[in-house]
């Protein structure tokens, strides 16, 4: 019998043929390879969130193998000597064991925590990008809504995770959460006892938070991320205006190989930064905080950064309590209710419906795939800056005790500054941001009409001085160009319009030499630098 020849070089093609015979994937596969991605740094922010979520899933799975949510009291006898012999809960003990007795456990715990902080931060910054560039407009309102929901789910997920180690900080956080639930009118006390299985803290809350944290909320987040990305693929990316870019195309690079190589590298970068943070920067050292005891708290107990704005709003709230008499019984609406239930409610609903509210005011029903520069929509930019200022005042107030302590300011003065700042600063920010946006707009128009400042000062025979301007297009008798603003960057420096020769490559010594016309051989051909012939005065 003749031995069959095996040719390794033909293997990929043979396999591909066999697969396509069965699945007919040639066409959808090629469509995926050829999907075009526009290139801009601001499109990478959402990717950071996605990648840190992957890190969270990986590190969280490891932690779940060792963590025990039981609140049963036990004696700690692990290797961290200062706490030996102390009565602690199983949850706290297993978290300590993870940190001290599982090889690499502390590294993965810190990785998980840092990735969580980065996840929420990336979501927030990604939201800013989407908001300020108008990427949420029709047809992408649904994806904006999913994004807002993802933010709040990440918030809940983070809080649940923060509660699990059962250290002094997580117990304090839970106690405040229980007070927040208690403050809800009519059903508050029922919801609180049902949540905690009786009186705070009870014995079941960590089991419940555990299943929420490792199964329910991540499941919903994952599902929403899938929908978020599916919508993105279906609707394709938005893009900045620019040469050749219209509302009916996407200009960029194809997914394979260029985009995917860069995106893969970016994932490694995000992962690597998280690993460096996890190894070098201690986070949530629960062994220093000690186990949760209802009678113990320390100053400067701050939650994770994304909860701090709620802590701040709670601190700034004046001592206003509503008391009623209904049907011969007294009722109370505690002050905690407003900053921790009503405020987050407003902060969820307003952004959720913002795309529709804005479209109603601007009467804009068109489909938009081109982004807007923040300066070109002053009212939205100003609104966003107002919201961020509001948020920042709350955020800073969440740490006002630490600021007061470190800067030796009166704590009460910090609280009052926060209360007043919360009312005064946001409108101020609105005004300032709007003026800046209008100013930038005007400057764009000015450069389009008069040209770029060259820095060359010319003296006329009659003694007057001019700055020479380089017009960006053909000029009329007064040296003015009639160029329309295209919604994109207007060059404002001479080297942006090719006035400087391209640099030679090389770190210590040049690795290439110029061609006779001054160019670098490896450079893509560019149009020759404009000559300084059409010099106008820049004035009429």
């Amino acid at each position, binding site marked *: 019998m003749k031995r069959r020849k095996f040719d390794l070089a033909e293997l990929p093609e043979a396999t591909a043929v066999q697969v396509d015979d069965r699945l007919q994937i040639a066409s959808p596969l090629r469509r995926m390879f050829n999907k075009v991605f526009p290139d801009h740094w601001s499109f990478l922010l959402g990717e950071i969130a996605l990648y840190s979520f992957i890190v969270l899933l990986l590190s969280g799975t490891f932690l779940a193998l060792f963590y025990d949510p039981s609140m049963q009291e036990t004696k700690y006898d692990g290797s961290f000597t200062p706490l030996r012999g102390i009565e602690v809960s199983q949850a706290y003990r297993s978290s300590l064991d993870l940190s001290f007795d599982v090889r690499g456990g502390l590294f993965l715990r810190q990785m998980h925590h840092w990735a969580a902080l980065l996840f929420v931060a990336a979501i927030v910054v990604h939201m800013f990008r989407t908001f300020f560039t108008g990427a949420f407009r029709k047809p992408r309102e649904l994806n904006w809504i999913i994004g807002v929901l993802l933010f709040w789910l990440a918030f809940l997920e983070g809080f649940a995770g923060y509660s699990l180690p059962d250290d002094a900080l997580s117990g304090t956080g839970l106690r405040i959460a229980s007070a927040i639930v208690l403050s809800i009118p009519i059903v508050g006390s029922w919801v609180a006892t049902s949540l905690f299985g009786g009186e705070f803290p009870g014995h079941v809350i960590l089991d419940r938070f555990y299943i929420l944290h490792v199964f329910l909320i991540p499941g919903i987040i994952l599902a929403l991320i899938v929908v978020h990305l599916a919508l993105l693929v279906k609707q394709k990316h938005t893009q900045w205006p620019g040469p050749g870019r219209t509302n009916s195309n996407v200009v960029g690079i194809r997914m394979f190989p260029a985009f995917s190589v*860069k995106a893969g590298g970016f994932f490694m970068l995000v992962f690597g930064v998280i690993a460096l943070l996890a190894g070098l920067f201690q986070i949530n050292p629960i062994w220093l905080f000690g186990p949760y005891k209802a009678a113990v708290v320390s100053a400067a107990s701050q939650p994770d950064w994304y909860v701090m704005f709620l802590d701040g709003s709670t601190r700034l709230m004046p001592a206003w309590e509503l008391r009623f008499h209904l049907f011969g019984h*007294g009722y109370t609406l505690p002050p*905690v209710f407003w900053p921790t239930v009503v405020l987050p409610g407003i902060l969820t609903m307003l952004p959720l419906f913002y795309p529709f509210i804005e479209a109603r005011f601007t009467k804009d029903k068109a489909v938009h795939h081109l982004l807007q520069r923040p300066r070109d929509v002053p009212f939205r930019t100003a609104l966003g800056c107002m919201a961020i200022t509001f948020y920042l005042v709350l955020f800073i107030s969440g740490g006002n005790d630490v600021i007061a302590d470190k800067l030796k300011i009166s704590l009460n003065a910090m609280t009052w500054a926060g209360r007043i700042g919360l009312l005064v600063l946001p409108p101020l920010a609105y005004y300032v941001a709007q003026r800046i946006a209008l100013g930038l707009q005007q400057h764009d128009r000015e450069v389009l009409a008069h040209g770029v400042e060259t820095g060359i000062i010319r003296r006329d025979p009659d003694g007057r001085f001019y700055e020479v301007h380089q017009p960006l297009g053909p000029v009329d008798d007064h040296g003015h160009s009639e160029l329309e603003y295209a919604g994109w960057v207007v060059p404002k420096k001479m080297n942006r319009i090719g006035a400087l020769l391209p640099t030679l490559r090389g770190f210590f010594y040049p690795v290439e030499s110029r061609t006779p016309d001054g160019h670098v051989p490896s450079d893509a051909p560019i149009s020759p630098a404009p000559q300084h012939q059409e010099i106008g005065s820049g004035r009429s």
Partner: protein
Amino acid sequence: MSVGHHNGDVDLDDPRLTRFDLVREGARRDGVEIVHYAPRFPVPGSRREKRIVRSISLMFVIAGLAGLGFVVSYIAWPFHYKPGFNINKWFTPMLGITLGLTLVFLALAMITWGKKLLPEEIAVQDRHDQIPDHAERRLTGATMLNMADELGIARRPLLRRAALFGLLPVGAAAAAPLIGGLIKDPHNPDILEHTAWGKGIRLVRDDLTPIRPEDVSVGGQMTVFPGIPGGNTNDHADSPTLLIRLRDEDASKLRSAATKIPENADSMYGNLVAYSKICTHAGCPASLFEQQTNILLCPCHQSQFDITNNARPIFGPATRRLPMLPITVDDEGFLVAKSDYQQPVGPGFWERSSS
């Protein structure tokens, strides 16, 4: 899909076609026009190209070495906690540095490869699959309306109502065990209004030892727990109490202030006063006692309570005073509670009576 009109423009069997012509045709059929495509290095093997290839290779090698370092330190580095400064403390930083370097150099290598070696390209994908097709819309709409017709929901009102009646309880039945299993009545037993304190229960320290009045120094404070089994655990999270011995002048100031509140009137024992430690705002332990000003500060939201005036809130978001625990001494001379708190302890809630 987005193609149609390009089909047949190119004869795929034409021997003159290069592979890139096929790539371009494939992209065209997907609605993608590759409008600019140029190699980064028109002359292959230039010094610059070689230099870039060398530096990318170096990055991969560094990544591999650091990865090896990670595995070695993970396996070999001692990691158990030992007090003091020692090599074990470097275990986590070593993992971070090695893994971080691996990933960062891998990232740099991949990104450099993508940006410096891959051909420069500009591709334009059209969006004409995103324009609504009105004919399709009509056909699908008719199909959907036909479904409703086939079911006859509009024509058969009895069936509609019966189906609604039949389905609603099914939904409720699915939700009932989920919600019902969790529900706990907050008023039976009335856990919000009562604590573990009661008549004759001793005030004990965290180690469960009872306290004599002279154990607290003047101007000093002490956290005390109900002297029952488990009284110092989180099972009685609403019971921790702050025992303070006031200076004489502060004590008499408080005594006169206490007469204005009937339940506080006879609650002190000598210069000793016991307040609930659970903040009436959000339930944190209000435990920062400023001896000089007699102010108690809650570190969570900075509510401040005036100890010499029935622990009334004087700053911050708290609205209610800290309840006072009536105390006395028993036959053996140890401090005991005269009763439970006369007010609900801790944060406010809806059913709380407005007294």
